[in-house]
């Protein structure tokens, strides 16, 4: 398989990464090289093999529904690019 320039732009949009036309071209070359490597997987018959998502067979632990963390809101918000009155600011979404 081989990715078209349109496909590169589409996945870049899905991933919310702006890509110029020149970058898209270089990226296309690199991604196609990588997918050539990945394609080796397609030669393997994996019928009946259960997909392995994780190294350990774990079920999610449950904890008591109790407060476990302290309020660090101010410390965490201090890291934000733009805040006002305890809110994270982003460009206007609703006119």
């Amino acid at each position, binding site marked *: 398989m081989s990715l078209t320039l349109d496909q590169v732009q589409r996945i870049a949009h899905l991933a919310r990464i702006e890509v110029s036309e020149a970058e898209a071209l270089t990226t296309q070359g690199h991604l196609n090289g990588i997918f050539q490597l990945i394609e080796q997987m397609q030669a393997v018959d994996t019928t009946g093999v259960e997909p392995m998502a994780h190294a350990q067979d774990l079920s999610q*632990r449950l904890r008591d529904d109790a407060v476990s963390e302290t309020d660090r809101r101010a410390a965490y918000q201090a890291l934000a690019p733009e805040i006002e009155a305890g809110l994270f600011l982003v*460009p206007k979404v609703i006119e």
Partner: protein
Amino acid sequence: MINTGLKELSQALAAKKISSVELSSLFLDRIERLNPDLNAFVTVDREKSLKSAADADARLAAGTAGALTGIPIAQKDIFCAEGWTTTCGSKMLANFVAPYDATVIEKLHAQAGMVSLGKTNMDEFAMGSSNETSYFGPVKNPWDRTRVPGGSSGGSAAAVAARLAPVATGTDTGGSIRQPAGLCNLTGLKPTYGVVSRYGMIAYASSLDQGGPMAQSAEDCALLLNAMAGFDPRDSTSLERPAEDYARDLDKPLAGLRIGLPKEFFAAGCDAGVMAAVQAAIKEYEKLGAAIVDVSLPNSHLSVPAYYVIAPAEASSNLSRYDGVRFGYRAPEYGNLDDMYMKTRAQGFGAEVKRRILIGAYVLSHGYYDAYYLQAQRIRRLIANDFVEAFKSCDVIMGPTSPTTAFRLGEKSADPVQMYLSDIYTIAVNLAGLPGMSVPCGFADDLPVGLQLIGNYFDEARLLGVAHRYQMATDWHRRLPGGID
């Protein structure tokens, strides 16, 4: 003092032959002198380090010190450490001062009383095998400064190799502890998945990421792992197991040990010099009483393809958090919200990180999920099953850590696929979730060669013992790069 192991450093501190402030100053001075060329550290804060050294000295004086109290350590810049800039090698986090400690940092600081000398350089978001994807520039290999130290824990490797720190933390998603350890003549251990907490360790591929020690010897790895490991309720994949002493098997004789040699690791594709050093190490093990068993990992050639589906898929999800809203970089100019995301991520991420996010977005997208993502997970199962089968007839698996010695800076950076293939022997271990080590085993053209040891689940203590017995009989791990004094 710079070549002294952790046990002896601990004894010297306890006997008041040296204070932690003196010891930490010694290493901080070395960093000041040697780091401008090596670029192993991205953040150093002498005042902060000496403050914790003074605290450690107080604990030593009060008799409340532990085995590692007062010993300096370098921290890979993937671990959040409260009050320390934590960049993960990225422009995205270049100004991010962590508001909390990773569990590993908390254990090493508050519990063990170790002194952090600074944060070490790394491939951006741990994506790389040469340390060249770092926003803060490449690290030079102390053995040959025209060559890479390996990656992604390249800064930690170079720091310990050049004796800028006695020991360091690393993380390993596809070989990022073992490969740089091998390329820099260090001993490094990637524990069984789930043994070391991932809380506060910036996520790349969460089902594979695992922290571990990088050190001058297996003994030092064991002592550091004792302080790093343990159940953590804040990590949903942390394993609830009783604490263990990873140094317990260091003195166990090797007689009767069955070493499995996978034929796939000894086939074409490995440099002759590397192979010769690995073969010589195996001969040494036979002399020490071990028996050799032929084993096979028939699907291991599929580990790199499967990894480059699974790891990018997880990365594309993990790295969606970098959107310029709550923390990290935000583009200076943008239009609407979508444009802000697109520009922030285009400017904040480097080329390799973008590539992996794009691969991940693609393999998870509608119509490709089954062919790529599920197929990769099925192959992951086959690879893990190969190990289960192999460990029926052996106790430990050995082979090369990497197919080559350290390559030249720039040699592979233009071709992602060539770079990916440098992890051809390490990646299967992450996919299976097994513990693996790299141990210095000789030189090829004056560059270090690493011997990889792979253990069964939770066999860290055995692996460390097997490595330690070899290090008692050989002195490869004591060799120093030229110009390091």
